């Protein structure tokens, strides 16, 4: 069957404004999600789950948060890692300080705390933007880096400075095997992605995009920049906070502040640039790319080096990684500011017309 919409007519506005208006798209999404839930656990080994899939899912969630802020609302942030840290440490404190706190509730509360912190450090966006806003978000990054390292209360006075949490127990389901972790993160990601899609196709998303594209002029059509910007910071930080809590609770188990350093912030920004600003799918593409590339290079470079009789050290692999990331950032900013997601949708557009391109 061709991928096209000939003969499909919408007879109500309701049918027209579905999340995926083309049935083929809708079925494809359902099939992918079903495969992710049922097929993947049957096919994949533990290493895959631990090294690739779980990090990919959590970073996708984080990238989605960054994309809401950077891609949809046009506010730059270099403090995404800090929001993750706030989420992780807040969730940790809820866990250890309140008896019988369910882990899922702690994670969500962690997200809420991150949202509050996001609003405070997003407030400068009301006055400044671009580079200046980047500096304000960097201030948040460095402040929280310091706070979680030096203020012992946050780490429950742990002597080593690192904190750890027991396995999550969700209504009797103990999440400890890689498969469990994968399914749990997948569930969270699916729910959060659907909510993001809903927000972005509705009034909230339109307000954010209006701020991104029109800025001062947006107030004239009755959009309050303060409300739009701060909600974008709040929602974005909420996503990042939940992702941070998952990163700590599920992926790492025990962690130190360095897990959420400025490098993490830059990595998340890069995911969004490479994946695609202003596209939900871009967050997934970007996260996949950034998770897979180092593993791929680690496997491939020594092989390629071997062909020419060269020794490839681990350090070299990480330098090459730097070079590739950096070049790709510049490349995408110059050639395709909407990233892989746009390349993907251009391809799909072509496919829609295929085989009659005119």
């Amino acid at each position, binding site marked *: 069957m061709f991928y096209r919409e000939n003969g499909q007519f919408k007879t109500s*506005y*309701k049918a027209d*404004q579905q999340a995926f208006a083309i049935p083929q798209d809708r079925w494809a999404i359902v099939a992918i999600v079903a495969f992710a839930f049922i097929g993947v656990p049957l096919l994949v080994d533990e290493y895959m789950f631990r090294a690739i899939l779980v990090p990919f899912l959590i970073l996708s969630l984080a990238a989605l948060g960054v994309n809401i802020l950077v891609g949809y609302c046009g506010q730059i942030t270099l403090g995404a890692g800090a929001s993750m840290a706030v989420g992780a440490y807040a969730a940790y404190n809820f866990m250890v300080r309140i008896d019988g706190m369910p882990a899922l509730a702690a994670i969500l509360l962690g997200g809420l705390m991150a949202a509050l912190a996001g609003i405070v450090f997003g407030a400068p966006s009301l006055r400044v933007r671009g580079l200046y806003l980047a500096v304000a978000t960097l201030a948040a990054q460095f402040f929280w880096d310091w706070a979680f390292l030096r203020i012992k209360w946050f780490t429950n006075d742990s002597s080593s400075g690192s904190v750890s949490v027991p396995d999550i127990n969700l209504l009797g389901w103990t999440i400890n095997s890689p498969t469990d972790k994968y399914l749990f993160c997948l569930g969270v990601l699916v729910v959060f992605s659907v*909510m993001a899609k*809903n*927000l972005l196709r*509705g*009034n*909230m998303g*339109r*307000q954010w*995009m*209006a701020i*991104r*594209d*029109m800025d*001062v*002029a947006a*107030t*004239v*059509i*009755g*959009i*309050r920049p303060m409300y739009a910007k701060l*909600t974008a910071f709040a*929602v974005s930080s909420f996503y990042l906070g939940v992702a941070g809590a998952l990163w700590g609770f599920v992926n790492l188990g025990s962690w130190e502040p360095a897990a959420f350093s400025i490098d993490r912030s830059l990595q998340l920004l890069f995911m969004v640039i490479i994946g695609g600003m*202003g596209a939900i799918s871009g967050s997934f593409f970007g996260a996949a790319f950034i998770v897979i590339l180092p593993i791929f290079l680690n496997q491939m470079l020594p092989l390629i080096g071997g062909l020419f009789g060269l020794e490839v050290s681990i350090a070299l692999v990480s330098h090459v990684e730097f070079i590739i990331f950096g070049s790709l950032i510049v490349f995408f900013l110059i050639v395709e500011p909407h990233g892989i997601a746009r390349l993907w949708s251009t391809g799909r557009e072509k496919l829609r017309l295929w085989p009659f391109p005119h």
Partner: protein
Amino acid sequence: MSGRKFGEVILDLKNISLSFGGVKALQDISFNVLEHEVRAIIGPNGAGKSSMLNVINGVYRPQQGDIILRGEHHANMDSYGAAKAGLARTFQNIALCKGMSVLDNIMTGRNLKMKANMLQQAIWFGAAQREELEHRAKVEEIIDFLEIQHIRKTPVGRLPYGLQKRVDLARALAMEPQILLLDEPMAGMNVEEKQDMCRFILDVNDQFGTTVVLIEHDMGVVMDISDRVVVLDYGKKIGDGTPDEVRANPDVISAYLGASH
């Protein structure tokens, strides 16, 4: 020119003065707008027309003067307040969201009337969807009215200039304003597009009873469609009246018509 009856004074501007640093953009300007009329502000380049419009909808705050909207004083109006009070406007340099579809752009204009909270929107089913459908129906009426059905789903950035202007107008109409401010609605258009735009403006005025305040360069158009005209020159008011009166005003002729036409 038409036989309609105007209502009360809906917008009254009193002794407005605005300056940027040492530059006096507007000096002691007063005029009023009657309900249901088409009111034009004309003048040569740099006369202060755009500043005047920006004062009316709160983008600039005048240093002196009073804005009375339906009997209420709004000396310190901001643009959000203006939007809430029923003023909508279009922009000279179209300020649309280039990446969004025409439909979404117009839906943005319904923003003030949408009440679903963030959580409801995230869940979508229920309140948010119901609301979205209601407003979609209203927006479709406007799309029909302005004859832009065929480009409903097109990203605005891909449209030609004339159509973008029409979308800008559609978004302003989606706010269901009592007063519609148009900033050079015909600038840069060809003759046919201008005729279309004139027709739409008059239709809006006629069918919805919307009061229209517009700035325009094209004298011919202004004289044809407006009921009353204010003439500005170097930030001062030099004429005010029906098109015929203004045309006969010697100050206007020397300052404006004589100079550039």
